[in-house]
């Protein structure tokens, strides 16, 4: 009875299922954006995507300006140091510029030799100064909602990619789900549908899960003045600040991609040599 089963078809089916399922299972990166009414996040062009990705220094510097002048009034960035601003693979500020930026902030240090705490200007070796002393104050100042730390936000958020994109993503190296989401979110403040039931103190955003976000629309045209003459539109500012947030989340991205290229070329050459050696050695056996 079982012989009537078409073997080659079963095998074909199973093999295709195999591929599909491994990949489904491996891309479990889809949990964040859920809910039926959430709009699909579009892929953006980023200089840091792909095998030869790099950060655009000017873009990161503009993004830092947006962070500093807008976001940082509520959002902390506790894993980033002022010195990072002048380190390779980042926004490319000079060490003096990084020092000057740090000096704009003050930190509590101590205790000194008298046992007293004291205020001093921040140094490049200090972490970015947080806007609030602790989470309780942060909540109190923001209507009960805690503004998340932004150091890792571009990796801590994701987008629902759907079939078959999660398979494609594995092999195209698409890893900008998070930063695409951040960009979309900043551009996602729209008039809500008339039948939408918005809670007090919340704002409508078409990309946020559930569409109700405590953060009001943070960007508006010309809220910052770019030194390099770039027009401060909401799109430009959100693009710049998203790129900056990608860098804070993944500060070694350039080094990683550069090293990866060398490693993979090396491995291909080594594989070729080993293949030839294998052929030569196995040719010794009687045929």
């Amino acid at each position, binding site marked *: 009875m079982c012989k009537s089963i078409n073997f080659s078809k079963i095998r074909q089916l199973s093999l295709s299922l195999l591929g599909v399922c491994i990949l489904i*299972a491996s891309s479990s*990166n889809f949990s964040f954006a859920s809910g039926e009414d959430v709009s699909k996040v579009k892929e953006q062009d980023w200089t840091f995507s792909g095998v030869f990705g790099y950060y655009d220094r000017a873009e990161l510097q503009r993004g830092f300006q947006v962070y500093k002048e807008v976001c940082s009034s509520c959002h902390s960035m506790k894993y980033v140091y002022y010195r990072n601003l002048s380190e390779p693979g980042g926004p490319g500020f000079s060490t003096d510029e990084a020092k000057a930026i740090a000096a704009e902030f003050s930190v509590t240090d101590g205790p000194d030799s008298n046992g007293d705490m004291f205020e001093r200007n921040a140094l490049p070796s200090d972490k970015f100064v947080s806007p609030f002393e602790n989470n309780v104050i942060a909540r109190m100042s923001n209507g009960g909602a805690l503004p998340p730390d932004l150091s890792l936000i571009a990796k801590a958020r994701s987008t629902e990619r759907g079939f078959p994109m999660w398979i494609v993503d594995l092999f195209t190296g698409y*890893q900008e789900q998070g930063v695409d989401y951040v960009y979309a979110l900043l551009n996602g403040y729209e008039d809500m549908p008339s039948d939408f039931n918005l809670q007090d103190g919340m704002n409508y955003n078409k990309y946020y899960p559930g569409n109700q976000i405590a953060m009001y629309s943070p960007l508006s045209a010309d809220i910052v003045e770019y030194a390099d003459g770039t027009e401060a539109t909401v799109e430009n500012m959100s693009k710049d600040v998203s790129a900056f947030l990608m860098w804070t*989340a993944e500060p070694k991205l350039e080094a990683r991609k550069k090293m990866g290229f060398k490693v993979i070329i090396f491995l291909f050459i080594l594989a070729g040599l080993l293949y030839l050696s294998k052929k030569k050695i196995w040719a010794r056996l009687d045929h």
Partner: protein
Amino acid sequence: MSKLSTYQPKSSLSRWFDERLPLPRLMHDSVNAFPTPRNLNYWYTFGGVLTFCLITQIITGIVLAMHYTPNAELAFGSVEHIMRNVNYGWLIRYVHAVGASMFFLAVYVHIFRGLYYGSYKAPRELLWILGVVIYLLMTATAFMGYVLPWGQMSFWGATVITNLFSAIPIVGGTVTEWLWGGFAVDNSTLNRFFSLHYLLPFMIFGVVILHIWSLHVTGNNNPIGISVKDEHDTVPFSPYYTVKDGFALVCFLILFAWFIFYNPNILGHSDNYIEANPLSTPAHIVPEWYLLPFYAILRAIPSKIGGVLFMFAAIGILFLLPWLDTSKIRSATFRPLYKQFFWIFLANCLVLGYLGSQNPEGGYLIASRICTAYYFIHFLVVFPLLGIIETPKPLPESITKSVLEKIKTKKIDEKK
């Protein structure tokens, strides 16, 4: 297999050594001269790949432990410290994190290769059982390792899995508190998981030695599954299989490197870049991809204790496989029916993996129940039954004959 040592000490120093501690002799006999069937295909190279994976995880893990802090307040920050401030810390951590996925990818290929070619049958039952023990230890190690970064998925994954033990009647609550070291997943849980995560890989290493030892007593199985008859059927492991395994390993490393350098985070969950927060539950709690089939089985059963039992039984049943399979023929190549069921089983496991990543409701829940049922039917009904009703294809006389036959047909094909 040949039991006589072929080792010849070449210098007076090596002779002196050989008379006192014959370690070079052991290495020579088990690595250089070890007679290996000449017809092993590339599916047989994953043993070497796995050894490499284990050593890589241990070395990168030791370095990570030098910079990591197992404390609920500091763990998340210490991982970021590794990523940002430690020289090449990002590389070491990504190798370790991607390495876990690659380790499981390789072990699944290795296990399914064993299932296809009947490598668990006499005389290799213990070899197989040791392999299942290694796999069990691997899942425990990987689970505890995933908790260490103390992100949201770490914390909630640990909460879900440790809570399973509370389903044990009478002592469940006590056992769970004992696992936690308190009344919830907290600092003491993280501390003991770190300690065990450091210990278990060395236990795996020990069982791997037993696994290889057992392999070297019974000798390799091979794609046609018939035993080695004389020395013409085998080649010395070195250079034939050192070079073949080496080539396969480097190909595997290309995939490995792709994920490390170009997609290091896609195999993990973005929520794990949010620091653990006991007050906020993520929308979906999912384990890493390699544990998803078992997660699907766990949630397919409508009772908690039942789910736990079936989940552990899904691995436990592998221990019995050598005796559940009634067929004397090893390789699926000569088992027309088994071959078909092998692919069905593989597809079933993959579908279970997919279902494990979805919410257990509606069609997904029904599908996971069907797939769970098939998983056990495959072992408890299909394996015993096939050996009785199946008519195997005629076996070749020897490994050498089958190899030469293949080359002949290939040459004739080329002439055409």
